[in-house]
């Protein structure tokens, strides 16, 4: 079977605008959640988030790209450029390289601005590129143009599992021989008035902090950003001397076919078991789990029970990095792959920060508050999405 490796990584998120900065922040347990500075914030109940600050897209993008991109596509373009630079992949003129960029909301900043103009400000015109900026496949399209990717290029939307689905599906395309190399990840920029107001309606957001697995948790906190990886067929990557960051050992995608929003222990369990089976790995070989760990009562309790069921009496350390970079929605699974790379490459387990009090319903070693050293050969990363969609990625050290 064709095997798949990761040969490049890039990111823009609230912790840092690149991979080294993000890994350093994860190792340091830094929290990027703070007060939001957006129009009409005073009309929001939830006024915190993990925003990308100091963002200067003009420093990275051409004038043409700047004029034609929403914030989410800008994040994707910059992350993809970093990943390509690290990988050194030569794309060529063929149709065998592509991109899958997951996103939950697409160009929400653009949508928000256009709605504000016509509904709130009574204008009768919107910016001419409103449609090509807001379309969910805009990020994938821009990435393809920037790097000459002429193979399979599309967006993928499975809410909070989008990034993980994108990486997993890209690995399947390479495995199946449908592509030689793929850029894959997620991008999201939902920290606009409309994006947060919509989430307020569900009453699952915290107004204070993200405290995954802590008994004192009271909801999720949104983040924004992107992470993009270069995935290649292993033999070709080795032959060209590419940097190998990790191997994609296994992937599973399952659906609960149950509730629209409530998580399912059986669904989470099945997805983890299937991913391990796909990788041909025993549960005991897993050294670190990056949890979905949203900080909601329901997710954390359900996910902890599912991990206990799959891994038995002694599950590996589990952490949720969302307390640092926020819940990056459609990009979150991709950003969290970085925590897996940190574990595999540097032997550092990212902490679950903001942890205050143990919850007997979440009986796990959550690496509370401070990073820890550990020799890790295999990691698992969970993403569970509204719609009952589960995606689990198994990565291995080279």
């Amino acid at each position: 079977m064709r095997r798949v490796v990761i040969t490049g990584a890039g990111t823009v998120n609230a912790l840092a605008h690149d991979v080294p900065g993000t890994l350093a922040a994860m190792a340091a347990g830094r929290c990027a959640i703070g007060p939001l500075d957006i129009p009409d914030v005073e009309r929001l109940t939830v006024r915190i988030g993990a925003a990308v600050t100091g963002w200067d897209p003009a420093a990275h993008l051409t004038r043409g790209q700047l004029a034609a991109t929403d914030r989410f596509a800008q994040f994707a373009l910059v992350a993809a450029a970093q990943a390509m630079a690290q990988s050194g992949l030569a794309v060529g003129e063929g149709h065998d390289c592509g991109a899958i960029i997951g996103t939950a909301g697409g160009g929400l900043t653009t949508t928000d601005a256009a709605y504000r103009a016509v509904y709130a400000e009574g204008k009768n015109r919107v910016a001419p590129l409103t449609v090509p900026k807001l379309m969910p496949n805009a990020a994938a399209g821009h990435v393809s143009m920037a790097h000459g990717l002429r193979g399979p290029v599309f967006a993928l939307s499975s809410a909070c599992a989008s990034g993980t689905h994108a990486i997993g599906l890209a690995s399947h395309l390479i495995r199946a021989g449908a592509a030689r190399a793929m850029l894959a990840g997620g991008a999201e920029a939902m920290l606009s008035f409309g994006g947060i107001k919509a989430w307020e309606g569900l009453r699952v957001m915290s107004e204070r902090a993200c405290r995954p697995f802590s008994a004192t948790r009271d909801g999720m906190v949104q983040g924004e950003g992107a992470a993009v990886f270069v995935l290649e067929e292993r033999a070709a990557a080795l032959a060209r001397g590419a940097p190998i960051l990790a191997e994609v050992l296994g992937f599973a995608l399952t659906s609960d076919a149950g509730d629209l929003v409530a998580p399912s222990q059986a669904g989470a369990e099945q997805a983890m078991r299937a991913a391990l089976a796909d990788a041909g790995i025993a549960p005991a070989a897993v050294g670190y789990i990056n949890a979905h760990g949203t900080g909601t009562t329901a997710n954390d309790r359900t996910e902890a029970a599912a991990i206990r069921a799959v891994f038995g009496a002694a599950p590996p350390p589990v952490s949720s990095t969302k307390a640092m970079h926020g819940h990056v929605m459609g990009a979150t699974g991709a950003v969290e792959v970085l925590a897996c790379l940190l574990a595999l490459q540097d032997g550092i387990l990212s902490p679950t920060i903001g942890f205050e009090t143990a919850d007997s319903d979440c009986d796990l070693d959550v690496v509370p508050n401070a990073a820890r050293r550990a020799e890790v050969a295999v990691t698992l990363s969970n993403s569970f999405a509204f719609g009952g969609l589960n995606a689990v990625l198994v990565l291995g050290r080279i």
Partner: protein
Amino acid sequence: MQLRDKVISIIAEKAVLDPSDVTLDASLASLGVDSLAMVEAIFAMEEAFDISIPFNANDPAEGRFDISTVGSIVAAVEDLLAQKVT
């Protein structure tokens, strides 16, 4: 329609029950109102009474808005309306 009857009609609609089956001492769980239906009922009450109800689905028992029974919800809505008038 009295405040109590309006609250009961909202909960009954979300529980897909006849209002006559919704008694003040009933718990939401006993009426089959799950967390999503509860969030919808809270929204409907906010709209009906033009109030803002402090409710976080992660911690419904936090005490800012007592949802233990239909009666406690009626009382909590009455409190919020009284605060609004003063």
